[in-house]
């Protein structure tokens, strides 16, 4: 193996700058003459605005401007958009209420944007923001996912009667009904997928600059997808034409989905910098992040499985209510629909699946993708239900999974819910995970724990996800407003070093290293001589960004294709220089050689020839710089089995994770060190959802968990070290044989943890987050029931 190529755990190229404090995050950037923006936010969950008096704020020290929704509308700045259409059961598109970046007469959640104050300093802007006098007429708030669409609820948006965004049935309803009627056994579970706040550690920020000379706006912003930002801000918000708008996502301190979306603050900053003709900077404090970042999850579901006498799954039926918040965020509609229902087959050969998703509006922050997006919700539901099935049938949880797994020889496997899985070996991952977890030794460990007064439990989660998002034609048919290909440009400079431009965006994933390894592997250039460039619409070709574990599976293939083009062109140039036929030129390890001879030249020499084409093949363009776009033919389907072992203190309800074993199939690994880090982080995120994190609003729509004082983030002492291994298969639908690994842990972990707790307590179910009090209560009930 090449020590810098595919499969090598190379140290990350990006680390040096982060370790010495030379990262370049949006809020680290300062420009001459910059002003500071602070938003006036609604303190009410639901209210009409009778008037806004900005005079006192305008008169305050240091204030440059106070702008409201009226100013925004007067300048023709459009509302924020949702990019994916879901057709409701009445045949109409989902209901899409207007989402102004600054309120137009009404606010719909606590934290909603009412006005912006721009001042010489942030302190002055904040002082003045308190002086903006808003006359609210408060309306009743709707906050509950379960009850939002009930009769008699306060109406939030005129265009969405009954607070319903869409009601989306999917699958063979009649077939499922018939299978349930004929089933030997039906298992059923009601469950909640708790609302989360995504919480990348860097709060969102934006810095807008307007150049009067070129009429160009430059927007530095915490984004996972600068070109998508530019497209949306230009085409839908009329901020500026695309060629006059530069969007830069510099170093970004984590995203996990929360920085995909185009937010009000970013649009307002971009607009305001031209309006006041000064650079405008905004950065969120953590409280604002809690209030106004898009949240994740928030489902209430009923799941049922019909089985035959052997515990074989015959059909599954799911009813889900999904909370979309007060407005539709950029991809809000897609998460509880296509990213959710299409994964309900899980790893199982369930022949019939029917689901109904009712998406509702509430007076809470918009809900959108958060690490995993839809797939954690599907996986949690399926993997909890499978454990209930096992219990109802008196089967070991591993055994019922094994009986229902899609057989290894059935791939490619067409599920009843659109997706066609291209590869997988689910029993292999299960076996390996059970070995890693020492499943056979569990009973003796449980007995030892009982002797100490502790309850030990073990839980499985055999997940599959669809990522490598996504084939453009497929998502187009489904109602997406964009294509989801990816782009790359690989450029040799005349001196032989390489610049790789990618349309993806790295915000922790280590693309600068992984992509350099990919190029090294193909072109033989040391990674020290390869620079990966991303995140600036003025530097890189159009790209779709990073989310849905797509960067390597889609963006990596584009890079590989550009490398292929360079090699093809290089052969022509080398053939000419080496006076051989093109067909006789071979390329390996960075060297073009004439087959069967010792005549060779390095790729660096070829590059030099291409830029100094004094003696050059006829008809070949000078330059050594290739572009490629790649549109995948299928999603990719990472899968695996995670096994969590926990110990409960029944007296307090405290759960300790004593062992966590993960065996995943990500296909081929480029940098195992980085992949393992992604798995660790994903698991922690999933454990956070299962044990700690619950975003909570009160009945008035006030956010109770608006800081780390009340929203419990996983900390180092909440977690163990993790045991991670792999059971790879080779996905035929991905040219690099890769699948994606960024979301797997967050998808796999929650059911593993909750299954373990249910196992320990001997209870059917406990909702997330399984806080000490919830666990204590469940333990009390279990004790009472068994007494």
């Amino acid at each position, binding site marked *: 193996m090449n020590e810098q190529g595919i499969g090598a755990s190379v140290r990350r190229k990006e680390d040096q700058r982060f370790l010495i404090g030379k990262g370049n995050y949006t809020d680290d950037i300062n420009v001459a003459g910059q002003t500071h923006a602070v938003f006036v936010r609604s303190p009410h969950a639901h209210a009409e605005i009778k008037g806004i008096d900005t005079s006192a704020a305008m008169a305050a020290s240091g204030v440059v401007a106070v702008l409201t929704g009226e100013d925004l509308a007067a300048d023709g700045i459009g509302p924020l958009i949702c990019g994916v259409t879901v057709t409701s059961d009445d045949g109409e598109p989902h209901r899409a209420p207007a989402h102004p970046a600054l309120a137009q007469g009404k606010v719909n959640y606590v934290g909603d944007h009412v006005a912006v104050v721009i001042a010489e300093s942030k*302190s002055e802007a904040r002082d003045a923001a308190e002086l903006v006098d808003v006359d609210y007429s408060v309306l009743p708030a709707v906050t509950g996912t379960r009850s939002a669409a009930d009769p008699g609820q306060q109406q939030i948006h005129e265009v969405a009667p009954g607070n319903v965004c869409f009601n989306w049935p999917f699958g063979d309803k009649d077939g499922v009904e018939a299978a349930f009627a004929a089933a030997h056994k039906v298992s059923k579970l009601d469950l909640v997928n708790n609302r989360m706040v995504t919480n990348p550690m860097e709060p969102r920020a934006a810095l807008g600059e307007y150049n009067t000379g070129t009429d160009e706006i430059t927007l530095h912003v915490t984004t996972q997808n600068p070109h998508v930002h530019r497209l949306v801000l230009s085409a839908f918000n009329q901020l500026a034409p695309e060629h006059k708008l530069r969007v830069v996502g510099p170093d970004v301190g984590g995203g996990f989905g929360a920085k995909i979306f185009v937010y009000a603050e970013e649009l307002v900053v971009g607009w305001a910098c031209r309006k006041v003709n000064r650079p405008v900077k905004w950065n969120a404090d953590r409280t604002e992040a809690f209030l106004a970042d898009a949240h994740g999850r928030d489902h209430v579901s009923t799941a049922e499985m019909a089985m035959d006498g052997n515990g074989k799954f015959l059909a599954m039926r799911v009813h889900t209510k999904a909370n979309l918040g007060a407005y539709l965020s950029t991809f809000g509609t897609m998460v509880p629909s296509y990213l959710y229902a299409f994964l309900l087959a899980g790893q199982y050969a369930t022949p019939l699946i029917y689901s109904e998703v009712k998406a509702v509006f509430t007076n809470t922050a918009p809900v959108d993708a958060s690490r995993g997006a839809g797939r954690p919700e599907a996986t949690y539901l399926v993997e909890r239900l499978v454990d209930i099935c096992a219990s109802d049938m008196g089967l070991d949880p591993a055994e019922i999974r094994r009986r229902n797994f899609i057989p290894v020889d059935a791939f490619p496997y067409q599920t009843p819910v659109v997706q066609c899985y291209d590869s997988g070996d689910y029993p292999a991952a299960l076996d390996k995970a059970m070995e890693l977890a020492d499943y056979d030794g569990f009973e003796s460990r449980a007995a030892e724990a009982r002797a100490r007064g502790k309850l030990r439990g073990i839980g499985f989660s055999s997940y599959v996800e669809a990522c490598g998002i996504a084939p453009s034609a497929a998502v187009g048919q489904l109602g997406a407003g964009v294509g989801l290909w990816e782009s790359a440009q690989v450029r040799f400079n005349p001196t032989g070093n390489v610049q790789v431009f990618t349309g993806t965006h790295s915000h922790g994933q280590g693309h600068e290293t992984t992509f350099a390894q990919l190029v090294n592997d193909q072109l033989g250039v040391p990674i020290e001589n390869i620079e990966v460039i991303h995140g600036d619409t003025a530097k890189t070709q159009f790209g779709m960004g990073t989310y849905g574990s797509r960067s390597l599976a889609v963006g990596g293939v584009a890079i590989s294709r550009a490398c292929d083009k360079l090699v093809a062109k290089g052969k022509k140039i080398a053939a000419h220089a080496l006076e051989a036929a093109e067909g006789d030129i071979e390329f390996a390890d960075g060297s073009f050689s004439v087959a069967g001879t010792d005549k060779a030249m390095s790729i660096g020499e070829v590059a030099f020839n291409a830029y100094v084409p004094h003696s050059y093949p006829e008809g070949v363009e000078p330059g050594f710089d290739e572009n490629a776009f790649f549109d995948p033919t299928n999603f990719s389907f990472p899968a695996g089995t995670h096994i969590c072992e926990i110990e409960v203190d029944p007296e*307090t309800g405290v759960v300790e994770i004593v062992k966590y074993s993960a065996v995943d199939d990500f296909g081929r690994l480029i940098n195992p060190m980085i992949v393992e880090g992604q798995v660790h982080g994903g698991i922690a995120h999933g454990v956070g959802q299962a044990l700690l994190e619950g975003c909570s609003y009160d009945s008035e729509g006030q956010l109770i968990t608006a800081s*780390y004082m009340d929203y419990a983030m996983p900390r180092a002492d909440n977690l163990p070290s993790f045991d991670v291994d792999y059971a790879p298969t080779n996905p035929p639908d991905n040219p690099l044989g890769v699948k994606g690994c960024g979301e797997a842990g967050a998808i796999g972990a929650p059911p593993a943890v909750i299954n373990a707790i249910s196992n320990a307590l001997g209870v059917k179910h406990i909702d997330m987050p399984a806080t000490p009090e919830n666990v204590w209560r469940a333990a009390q009930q279990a004790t009472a029931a068994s007494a």
Partner: protein
Amino acid sequence: MYEFNYRKVDSVDAAVEAIQQADDGKFVAGGQTMLPTMKHRLASPSDVIDLGGIAELVGVCVEGDTVIIGAMTTHAAVAASAEVQAAIPALAKLAANIGDPAVRNKGTIGGSIANHDPAADYPAAVIALGATVKTSRREIPGEEFFTDMFETALEEDEIITAVTFPVAEMAAYMKFENPASRYAIVGVFVAKTGGEVRVGVTGATSCAHRGLQLEAALGGQLDASGIDAVELPVENMNSDIHASAEYRAHLVKVMTKRAVEACAQ
């Protein structure tokens, strides 16, 4: 944060004088609660009088059967103090688990007690150990110091100078942490001093207090067998998303039992 006048003082007298001169002055000790409160604009003092320069308020000493901790002694210093570790190890342990290492390097015992966050740790120890709070004017018995949530017996211009703790024969503190803030959902300090067993409870209710029912059940002994039978008034307990009143009442008993067991070890 709103702007304020900053005054740094180097003596207790100067501090008292400064606050008397201010419109609406506040003392700041370690600032680990005060500054976040001001950052959120929940407090807007006209003057902030920084006690950080008063050297005489810093330090730990043991005199006979008494541990004297200067009000401006940090949690880290108390935790690391060999004298405290030897005299009242439970107190050193309590200090070692307040906040996190960086917070402990700034936060002080005087600040913590004067602020009286109902979920702070020190109040439980002050009560259970029968400590005395020494101030710029007087000595206040620990049990009478905490009056209500964020309220104490201190006057506006009164400064804590030291807290004196009688050395206990045996003592232990058990904290059940809020998973988010890591403050005490419930904290119980049990101490046996001079033949008496006292229980200090924090986090459970609006005010740190003596657990008299628990003490009665212990009957002066480090024997927790009677604790389960205690019926604590649930209606007095705090209730929030992390712990209902009923659960808190339960935790008070569990933490008491565990503290008693830890004393015995």
